[in-house]
């Protein structure tokens, strides 16, 4: 038996995984640490948000939905702070941002 909630959850999960793929592609292909942070932090956390939303839609309980929201907020906080800390420290250590060679 497949309800509308199940289908919506599955669609959201598929969309989330696509964002994860995009993030990993960026991690592999982008030229330096700053661009990789840029790719990974945004894409992955959007992907996780979509998966959380999908799980919340399927769970059908408000408490579980709130817990999943908390999971997403915590990961967002950690990722945003972590990205900023890594980038700032890398900059201070003298890793220069990538620039196209003339």
């Amino acid at each position: 038996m497949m309800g509308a909630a199940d289908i919506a959850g599955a669609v959201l999960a598929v969309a989330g995984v696509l964002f994860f793929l995009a993030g990993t592609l960026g991690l592999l292909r982008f030229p330096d640490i700053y661009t990789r942070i840029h790719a990974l932090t945004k894409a992955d956390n959007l992907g996780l948000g979509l998966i959380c939303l999908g799980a919340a839609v399927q769970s059908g309980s408000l408490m579980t939905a709130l817990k999943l929201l908390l999971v997403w907020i915590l990961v967002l906080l950690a990722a945003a702070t972590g990205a900023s800390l890594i980038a700032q420290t890398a900059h201070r250590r003298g890793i220069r941002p990538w620039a196209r060679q003339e």
Partner: protein
Amino acid sequence: MAVFDLILGLLLVVLVWKSLSVSDLFGAVISFMAFGLLMAVAWVRLEAPDIALAEAAIGSGLTGALLFSTLGRLPHSEARQPVVSRTVRNGPGYWMTTGFWWVLAILLSIAFLFSLLDLQTPGLGGLLQERLPESGVLNPVTAVLLNFRSLDTVMEIAVLLLAVVVAWSMGTVVWPVKRTLPSPLLPGFVRLLTPFFLLVSFSLLWRGSHAPGGAFPSGAVLAAAGILLLLAGKTTRICPRFMFWLRWILAVGLLVFVFAGVSLMVAGYGFLVYPEQWAGALILLIEVSAGVSIGAMLMALYIGGEPDIHSA
């Protein structure tokens, strides 16, 4: 499903191999952390939520922080050196040692496989479910840890305490008072997050009686909160009066456990044999004190020595 399990197992083996064989310590630490993350997924797949919770807290967070901090304390040349140097790798001694461990590992694996064949198929799960109502809790794992096999848990807590005693006997820790923080973002972030850590820690502790959770994951989350505060610029210098309380906090888990056991013995029940009507309350009391102690002990082990006494 089988394909997924196969990939998971393969990745785990690759990560273990890398954390042992990679040529620099930093790479080894990162591989080991990644191994901890995937190990938690493996526990989820094995339907062992209690262990998955503990692995999530200890394997990914605490171990990572501990190993990174250790790496930061090593002198430069040492941290940069390959784990096994080239000259050693070519010598006959290296091959003999490696060969010995390989043979031992293969023999142990074969023995393990045979013991798997001999395993009694029904296991003890049925018996546990049958006796669960007597235990005073609804979560079978907590029932085993704190009622049926509580002696093992007493010993585990005693071993942790012993480890702290050994760490403190190494002398006081000089924690750098003023470290330049990488960004003003960090203290604010930690201030925002600490209440969440406390909330999750207490909820895990409370849920232990009827759902996966309990003293060990709860203590680990508590310790993580403390370590995060330290990393965000708090110091380990404490006043002598609090030092007195700290010793009690470290010991209270073991003390309450042993005291409960001995008083039951005096009352004529035997060491840690709970009378049925008291079991639930006793387990809650022991679990709360053990959780607080485990948190303090894990944090003390992270600091790695007696805190500096601030004489003011």
